């Protein structure tokens, strides 16, 4: 099996280099892509960086052609191993000087350098060295044991596709979408099913309400606590009321339908209470009237 693997390394490596090299050579947005990598800083200038990237792409295509057409030759294998080692060094440098930069490996990815990029560069270096141990041409190896060879090639191609896709790759997103379509969303509704309204929804409804507008000048805190009682949801805020010289702390309580939310047709009732925190005296009536100010004049209507 080891021999078969070594014999199949040249076509796998060749296909990978051919793809990455051709992608970079034919890319029309190479200059923009290069700007997102650490290469301009390494070679001091975006123009040079594009040249370096094109030269690397040409080398990749040449090496790929050598590996595919002349798998027994040592030069393409040694070249690929050196190229892989160079990639590793470059990635290490880029991780240190510009951690958020992209790899630029395939000319189409903008994802930052992750372990995927290192693993793929490591594969190029390792496979280049491993290809030196191949003892027969890959087409002969495939002809001798077609089933095992095809299985190995498919597994290798899948692993390389996984590494090339990056953490946010389109292929990965398609797979995840497919999984959701087949098995449904694991983030179902609430346990128990039924129209439980989140507290957030009650707060949202309250904060857009006339009740809130009426007493908001008293409220000094965010939501302190909440609980439910007989179908009502009670929301407790703290506040302050001006009493002579000083502010006295009060509890501002709102009671609203526990099942109400913004989308439910109007007519919800909200009850407002203000309770003095020190004396436990219910102050609602006068305080709400004072906080609400004078009655609103009717809106002017056309016609």
């Amino acid at each position, binding site marked *: 099996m080891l021999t078969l693997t070594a014999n199949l390394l040249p076509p796998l490596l060749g296909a990978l280099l051919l793809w990455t090299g051709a992608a970079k050579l034919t890319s029309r947005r190479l200059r923009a892509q290069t700007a997102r990598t650490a290469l301009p800083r390494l070679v001091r200038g975006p123009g040079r960086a594009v040249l370096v990237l094109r030269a690397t792409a040409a080398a990749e295509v040449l090496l790929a052609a050598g590996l595919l057409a002349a798998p027994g030759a040592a030069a393409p294998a040694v070249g690929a191993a050196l190229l892989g080692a160079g990639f590793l060094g470059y990635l290490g440098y880029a991780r240190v000087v510009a951690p958020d930069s992209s790899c630029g490996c395939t000319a189409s990815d903008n994802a930052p350098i992750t372990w995927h990029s290192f693993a793929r560069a490591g594969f190029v270096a390792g496979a280049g060295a491993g290809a030196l141990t191949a003892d027969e041409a890959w087409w002969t190896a495939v002809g001798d044991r077609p089933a095992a060879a095809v299985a190995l090639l498919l597994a290798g191609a899948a692993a390389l596709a996984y590494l090339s896709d990056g*953490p946010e790759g389109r292929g990965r*997103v398609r797979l*995840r*979408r497919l999984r*959701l379509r087949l098995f*449904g969303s*694991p*983030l179902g*509704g*609430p346990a128990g099913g039924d129209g*439980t*309204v*989140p*507290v*957030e*929804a009650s707060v*949202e409804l*309250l904060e*857009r*309400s*006339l*009740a809130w*507008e009426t007493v908001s*000048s008293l409220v*000094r*805190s*965010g*939501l*302190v*606590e909440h609980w439910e*009682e007989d179908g*009502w949801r009670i929301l407790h805020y*703290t506040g*302050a009321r*001006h009493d002579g010289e000083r*502010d006295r*702390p009060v509890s501002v*309580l709102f*009671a609203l339908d526990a099942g*109400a939310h*913004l*989308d*439910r047709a*109007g007519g*919800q*009732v*909200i*009850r*407002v*209470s203000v*309770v003095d925190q020190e004396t*436990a005296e*219910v102050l*609602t009536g006068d305080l709400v009237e004072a*906080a*609400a*100010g*004078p009655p*609103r004049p009717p809106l*002017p209507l056309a016609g």
Partner: protein
Amino acid sequence: MTPISSATAGDRFGRRGFLTSAALGGATIVGASALGALDADAAFAAPAPSLDPAVTETSFVEGRIGAIRGGLLTAASSEGETHRVQLTNATSIWKARPTTADAIEVGDGLYARGVPMPDGSIAADAVWVNIVNLHTTIRGIHRDRFYLSHGNHELVGRTIPETAASYAGGALTSDLSRLRIGQAAQVLGAWRPADDSIDVVRVTVGH
């Protein structure tokens, strides 16, 4: 969380019973969403009554909590200042949900609203711990979490019992099954410094 002794629990329920009866006996205001402060009609309404003078002095501070002594939090802001934030009995504290001062830890991020005191500290009336509000893209959905990308960073958003979603401007709902991979999502939640994930409180999609 510290267990509540039965006496404390009894006090709490007694207090809640009292507050509940006060709340249900309060002034009734009908038409919750008819004339809301954010409603277009509010633009035509009479000017709002002037707010309490203390409101104009309200200030906001942010920072990373470096020390907690009693109810006094010391926070280093991102601009290099040091803020001292005093918690009071009336301070509301949010850390993914309304909670108590015990939930605040050194290393947490702090966003506080309060009144400046003569000694330079801030008496807080509301403190939001580790609050984040991010524009992200949903990249993956799992049973109790989803994966988000935010700029060049990958984030894990954990669902908690309070997690609510709003689809295309609709009301908040606890049904998360309509989230889709690839959607742009605004996520409000509490950052967890321990593993750099986010407890998601609200996810808004379809805007």
